[in-house]
């Protein structure tokens, strides 16, 4: 992975910069010893590592502002970091950067059930937002798989999704307002506890900008009343095409499940070996979950069963209880672990139009043969968000590179059929150099113009999202 050359003039001033930071932060919030900065050398994309020059852990918005003012004045690159769970290398440091971690800012500032919002500090984990309101039967809808660990700051930066976004949307659809510190230290409040905002939709463009426009320190989030209940149905089919057609028919029939998960045969086999979830031996397995009261769930499941039966299923297993629901979900939830037991894997998240599913799965199978690397597919079928897991051996020289090449081919295929490179993980460094397959130079320039406005010196997380060659003139200006 190519990263920009570190700025020697910054590295030379390290001790001076540390001293300045120590003037605005407590001693334990400035980390600069080599053996300690290594803790921040990578995020969830562990294939790439680089210890930062310094890491800081501010506790307040004022401290974040003070840090950014110093870095701005000194021309020091800053990489914001939530919980470091990014699968795209969104928090990967550069050698000359200050990692700005917001983990210490994890409080709940305000909860309002009548107006259905919660205001939190951005270091709070996704799951603990729901944790703060579930005693009152409320929840925060976006549910990325890393929700136990990932921070709201990272969710906002990456516009995180999850299994239930077919019904509830992703982060951007559930974010009402933010407090953000600009690279020059200025603090801005955008949006609030109300639905529509004045002026341009800055909230909309900040969400998903991968920490390149500012450091979000507080977020006002929409919370929802929990449904009365939810239950899944498991279905097995003899071909991916048939399973894909079934998904499409369910949607066309007017049923809007909260989740439609799809697993192909290699995935099901791995899951069975690992978790013994009792999944059928089928080419494709679907798990469809619906919500409501018991009667409402029964009504929706009956419609789904009627549709599925037209597609000649090899298995139909409707959950009637919490235990049966857990058993159905057990395999799906173990999928990533099951793959990890077999080998190292790389998880992609390109999205495709649902109608292209059979073609894409067939092509991935052919490519798997060509590259000699196994791949399993598990994904959110309702919205076409694929998750091909490519197996490789990190200890075998050349295998990672081969896997990356294979992955790039899959993503190019996603774009070719009308989809996109990433549906929920973000671009980061991982997909940065593929951006030109989806966007023209003019398209990329339009996006970079936005960064020019928020961060004219290009100091914030600048080596991500855009191909280095495209952003070079701006970064080195």
């Amino acid at each position, binding site marked *: 992975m190519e990263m920009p050359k570190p700025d020697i003039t910054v590295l030379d001033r390290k001790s001076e910069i540390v001293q300045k930071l120590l003037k605005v932060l407590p001693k334990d919030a400035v980390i600069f010893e080599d053996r300690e900065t290594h803790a921040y050398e990578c995020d969830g994309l562990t294939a790439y590592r680089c210890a930062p020059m310094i890491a800081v852990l501010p506790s307040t918005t004022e401290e974040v502002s003070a840090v950014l003012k110093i870095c701005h004045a000194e021309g020091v690159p800053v990489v914001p970091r939530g919980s470091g769970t990014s699968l795209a290398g969104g928090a990967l440091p550069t050698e000359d950067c200050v990692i700005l971690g917001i983990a210490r800012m994890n409080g709940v500032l305000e909860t*309002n059930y*009548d*107006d259905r*919002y919660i205001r939190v500090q951005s270091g709070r984990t996704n799951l603990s937002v729901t944790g703060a309101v579930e005693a009152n039967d409320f929840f925060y809808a976006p549910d990325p798989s890393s929700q136990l660990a990932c921070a709201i700051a990272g969710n906002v930066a*990456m516009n995180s999704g999850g299994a239930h*976004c077919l019904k509830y*949307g*992703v982060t*951007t*659809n559930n974010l009402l307002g933010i407090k953000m510190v600009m690279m020059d230290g200025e603090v*801005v409040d955008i949006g*609030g506890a*109300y*639905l*529509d905002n*004045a*002026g*341009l*939709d800055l909230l*909309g*463009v900040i*969400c*998903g900008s991968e920490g390149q426009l500012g450091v979000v320190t507080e977020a006002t989030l929409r919370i929802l*009343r929990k449904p*009365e209940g939810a239950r899944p149905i498991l279905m097995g089919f003899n071909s991916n095409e048939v399973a894909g057609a079934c998904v499409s028919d369910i*949607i*066309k*029939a*007017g*049923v*809007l499940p909260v989740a439609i998960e799809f697993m192909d045969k290699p995935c099901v086999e791995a899951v069975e070996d690992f978790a013994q979830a009792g999944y059928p031996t089928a080419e494709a397995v679907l798990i469809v979950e619906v919500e*409501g*009261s018991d*009667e*409402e769930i029964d*009504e*929706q499941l009956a419609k789904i069963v009627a549709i599925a039966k037209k597609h000649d299923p090899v298995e139909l297993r409707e959950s009637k209880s919490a235990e049966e629901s857990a058993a159905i979900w057990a395999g799906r939830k173990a999928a990533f672990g099951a793959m990890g037991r077999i080998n190292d894997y790389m998880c992609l998240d390109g*999205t495709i*139009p649902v109608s292209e599913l059979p073609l894409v799965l067939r092509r991935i199978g052919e490519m798997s043969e060509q590259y000699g690397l196994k791949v399993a597919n598990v994904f*959110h079928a309702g*919205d*076409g968000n694929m998750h091909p897991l490519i197996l490789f051996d990190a200890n075998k020289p050349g295998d990672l590179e081969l896997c990356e090449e294979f992955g790039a081919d899959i993503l190019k295929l996603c774009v070719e059929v009308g989809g*996109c490179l*990433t*549906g929920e993980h*973000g671009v980061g460094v991982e*997909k940065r150099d593929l*951006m030109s397959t989806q*966007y*023209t130079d*003019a*398209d*990329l320039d*339009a*996006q970079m*113009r*936005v*960064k020019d*406005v928020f961060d004219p010196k290009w100091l914030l997380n600048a080596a991500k999202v*855009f191909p280095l060659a495209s952003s070079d003139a701006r970064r080195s200006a």
Partner: protein
Amino acid sequence: MTQTAEQKLADQVAQAHSNGQKLRIIGGGTRQSLGNICDIATTVSTLDLNGISLYEPGALTVVAGAGTPVEDIEKALAAEGQRLPFEPMDHRGLLGSQGTPTIGGVVACNVSGPARIQVGSCRDSLIGVRMVDGTGSIIKNGGRVMKNVTGYDLVKLASGSFGTLGVLTEVAFKVLPASEATATIKIQGLGDEVAVATLSEALTAPYDVSGAAHITAQDTKDATTLIRLQGFKKSVAYRAEKLKEQLSKAGDISVVTAEKQNVMLWKTVRDVEAFHKKETAVWRISVAPSDGPKVAQALRDITDAQVVYDWGGGLVWASVPYGTDARSALVGIDGYAVCIRDQDTSAQSVVPQNAAIAKIEQGLRAKFDPKGILNTGIMG
């Protein structure tokens, strides 16, 4: 939409850019009076960008040229049992305008309706745009898939930008199934505070409310509180029964189940029919729902004001005498107010932002339209 039509439009903008010629963007022309006054004689029309280029019911996606009539899209969706999720309002009645609303105008003004409380606004369903920026360059962002975090979300930025960042040429949406049945719980005679508290109670119950409005007493008509439930027949009946039971203490309560009546009721709310044909100014105020009645009271304290609440109380439509500045009712309350209709259209209708935000907005406009030729001044 044809590529030629898009290129033609791009050429026109490029030409105007090089001449420093200002352009007024026009689609169906039904929302031209929204925003600050923007008196530019030369127009650029989106009407040649007409037609649905892609509709996949099984993938819940539709793509159309910006000049496509909203009605054409709604008809095509209805034929497959689907709908635009955000229920865009028709401004003609309120603004007294003529013409055919186009989808580009809906997006440019980020127009939503009562369903916004459940499924989000126009920008939440918008998944892709193509537009021509102020230099004549064609830009695309997003695409035709509903989950997409590839690069910055300029889709959101374009929605509600009133054409100031570019002329929209094509828009793509995530759509939803139309509902099999609708029921509206109707309560008569509630005061503002009790009504909004009742809406809040409905919205915090687990019954998936898709509309929550309160029309205050006007002339001889009683105040009416409306709560909408949609979905499959049995489910709607079940939820309506549950909610009616829960809210029965509120007063004179009934349930409307006839489809035609429901459509009419919610069109009344969506298009703010209460204020059609009135000789008044109309303001649109967005606040936290429980602040809605406070804003209304503050307005009544200073003038002769009538209000309609949507979005559970968080959207306040206020009818006030011509020339009233309703922003004064927002002192000490978070949110924003914008004038939608007034006699003197030269009055500034858009709230100025605080300095830091205004600087960012100004910066963005300068990057996308360096000579400031597109709908100049419409957003302040």
